[in-house]
């Protein structure tokens, strides 16, 4: 009998996957052509992409960078044999000629270094807040930055921002000193009352006096010369920086057990969230002066900043409240059982976790706020959109549209997209789960 049983002695070597399953072909089959409906969908989308690109790309790549007016653009395009009536190509000359204006508004061009320096310092001042690796010493810069930025952009006497900043030092010193003598509550009251007296009654005569003794300052710039992306960033950053702390306080107020405080916070939040931002800007432009003491008339940009900040704080409060509500009750109870008082519990236990949960919401509020700065063009400020209208009123560029809007939209996209990517980075960095 012959033994016909067959036992393989050695393992068959691995073979590569079939060509249709591996590599690029396999990937395409799996992700784009897996079955008939999928293939049809892919073909439709491809057709759509190609038709959009084929109409936009020739328009974008148009050799009109050095043209000085719309008619010159069109003649360049007509010489190339393209359609000279706008459809043939973009007229990028307007961006070359006016991009500085779109960035700085009517800021005097010999002083452009001031907003540029302010913007650069903003990056440095934000670094310790945004990134872990940055030097902690930069936090000193962060503390004085608002005053430095104010002085760099608006100019004028250096003593005014310095004396205003001194108010905060007085608050701190007052707190520490009175705290030692008369207890923490008196310390808190002193830290509120003393700087208020300082700001309301002492700052303006003192800064005038100091300026007459030591006239250090720079050329003052009127607010109506500010504009462009500088204005958008200025309003946006102020709103962002101030709305977070105010929003946190409002959220805590809304969560609190004190009915009157809670009612006030709820009314404020719901009122602000119920009306469009544009109506609040109308209030800033027409009504705010009526609400303030007779004769007081301060800058429109400042009024807009106040309204934008209030608007963003109400939204921020709701985002933070969501974070607070998402925390397990045990965290509050644990803080209580450790004997921490309310503020310590908030600062050490609750807020770090609640804010971490609400990062995506906080950043999307920031993005929304930055986008909403375009609304100030409706009440007549020269933000990028307002400037676009202004540029189109110029004889040389009368009739230009897409180039300006495209440029403005592109810059906004870069700002907002990088903010949203940063929030993803932050979420990953702070993630402690598994």
């Amino acid at each position, binding site marked *: 009998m012959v033994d016909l049983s067959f036992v393989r002695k050695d393992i068959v070597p691995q073979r590569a996957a079939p060509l249709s399953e591996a590599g690029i072909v396999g990937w395409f089959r799996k992700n784009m052509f897996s079955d008939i409906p999928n293939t049809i969908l892919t073909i439709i989308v491809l057709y759509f992409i190609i038709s959009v690109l084929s109409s936009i790309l020739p328009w974008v790549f148009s050799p009109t960078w050095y043209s000085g007016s719309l008619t010159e653009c069109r003649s360049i395009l007509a010489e190339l044999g393209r359609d000279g009536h706008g459809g043939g190509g973009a007229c990028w000359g307007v961006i070359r000629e006016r991009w500085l204006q779109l960035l700085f508004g009517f800021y005097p061009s010999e002083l452009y270094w001031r907003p540029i320096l302010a913007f650069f310092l903003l990056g440095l001042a934000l670094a310790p807040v945004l990134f872990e690796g940055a030097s902690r010493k930069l936090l000193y810069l962060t503390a004085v930055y608002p005053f430095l930025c104010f002085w760099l952009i608006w100019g004028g006497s250096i003593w005014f921002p310095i004396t205003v900043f001194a108010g905060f030092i007085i608050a701190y010193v007052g707190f520490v000193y009175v705290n030692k003598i008369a207890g923490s509550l008196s310390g808190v009251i002193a830290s509120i009352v003393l700087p208020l007296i300082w700001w309301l009654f002492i700052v303006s005569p003192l800064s005038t006096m100091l300026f007459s003794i030591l006239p250090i300052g720079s050329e003052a710039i009127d607010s109506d010369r500010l504009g462009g992306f500088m204005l958008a960033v200025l309003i946006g950053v102020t709103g962002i920086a101030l709305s977070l702390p105010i929003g946190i306080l409002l959220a805590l107020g809304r969560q609190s057990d004190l009915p009157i405080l809670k009612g006030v916070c709820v009314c404020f939040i719901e009122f602000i969230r119920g009306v469009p931002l544009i*109506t609040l800007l109308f209030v800033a432009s027409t009504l705010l002066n*009526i609400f303030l003491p007779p004769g007081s008339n301060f800058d429109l940009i400042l009024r807009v900043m106040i309204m934008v900040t209030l608007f963003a704080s109400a939204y921020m409060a709701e985002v933070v409240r969501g974070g607070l509500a998402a925390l397990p009750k045990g965290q509050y109870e644990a803080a209580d059982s450790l004997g921490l008082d309310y503020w310590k519990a908030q600062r050490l236990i609750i807020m770090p976790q609640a804010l971490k949960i609400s990062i995506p919401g906080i950043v999307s509020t920031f993005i929304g706020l930055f986008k909403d700065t375009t609304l100030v063009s409706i009440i007549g400020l020269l933000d990028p959109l307002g400037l676009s209208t202004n540029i189109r009123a110029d004889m040389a560029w009368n009739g230009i549209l897409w180039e300006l809007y495209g440029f403005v939209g592109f810059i906004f996209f870069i700002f907002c997209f990088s903010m949203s990517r940063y929030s993803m980075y932050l979420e990953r960095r702070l993630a402690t789960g598994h």
Partner: protein
Amino acid sequence: MNAIPDPDKQGFKFSQLLYDTRYRSMTIQVVSLIALLLFFGWLISNTAANLATLGKPIQFKFLGEPSNYDINQRLLDYTSRDTHLRAGLMGLLNTLVLAFMGCITATVLGVAIGVMRLSKNWLVARVMTLYIEMFRNIPVLLWIIIVFSIMIETMPRPNQFRSGEASMKLLDSVAITNRGVYIPEPLFSNGLGDIYLLGASSLRFGISLDLIALLIVLFVGVFVSRKIKTSADKIQNETGVRPTTWWKRISVIIFPIILVLWALGFHLGYPELKGFNFKGGTYMRNSLIALWIALSLYTAAFIAENVRSGIQAVEKGQSEAAFALGISPGRTMNLIILPQALRIIIPPLISQYLNLTKNSSLAIAVGYMDLTGTLMGITLNQTGRELETVLMGMAIYLVISLAISSLMNWYNNSVKLVER
């Protein structure tokens, strides 16, 4: 056993107001209430002093005066001899129409895009991501202006239709021109007419009886259709076999409506080129179309993200369990996935509707006469009553927002998971 002794009865001391937790919260509240009242008193006294200097005490008499301006899109009868109040009402109706249209299209688009973003097709998913990022990161005001410019600059002029350079779309029924879009209008040759309410006051309005008749028939049809469904459910519960009812349920709704439409002599009035412009049909202005498209596309990007996160939040085990029970994919979607996803999607959806309604106030940028354009725009400029008009406008927006959110919260509560 030691009993805890009562604390010494020392009587009330003033310092207890600050250091005793029983009284401290009271103290804080009273102090903050006083501060708040002082603040409001300060504001009101300032306002009174300022208004006295300006010589315009607060009064709403201007609402009854003739407005002397025209409104280009009016849903009710209105002339420039009507009052400012009626002009404001026209603006309010325009706002509501825009918001309503926008919410519907934004929801449809947003759901479609959100689902496609999760598509297994790599290309489709990428294109949808690009769409979402583009619209979420560029200001809505810019989008409105861009769409408005597209409407004005690239659409054909009415006279180009005459020379044949442009043609009407959809079987010669829709004309897209640079002045706006003309669509067929519904007409009733033996209609029931209108009823007019509120006489000759500023808030008078008329309602088409044809519309009321159609709505009644529709509601009755839906009601009967639901009855059929309940009885089918009952039969299924008793016998285990579900009778086929879909054609009954659809025809109960559709046939009565067709019958009523026929009885009323329903036909479409098509737009026609007469002279320099189109006549007939419903005319939708450029500004309305631009706002509608831009707000829908913009809000759809946000809704798409909500829909995506809602669908992703339903665990995979749910659909696997449904398949294990032998439920068909369509019914799995309807009965298992969607009810759970909707619960997550609806709250953010409400806030998107609110955002859209509030963003509709940007209409002022393209000259659409909404509430901001009439009451807080031309009326403000003509009468110089900034305090009254702006506060009224804010109050109206506030009421709209609260109404939408309470309506949606009521719906949200009705689909909420009942927890034990």
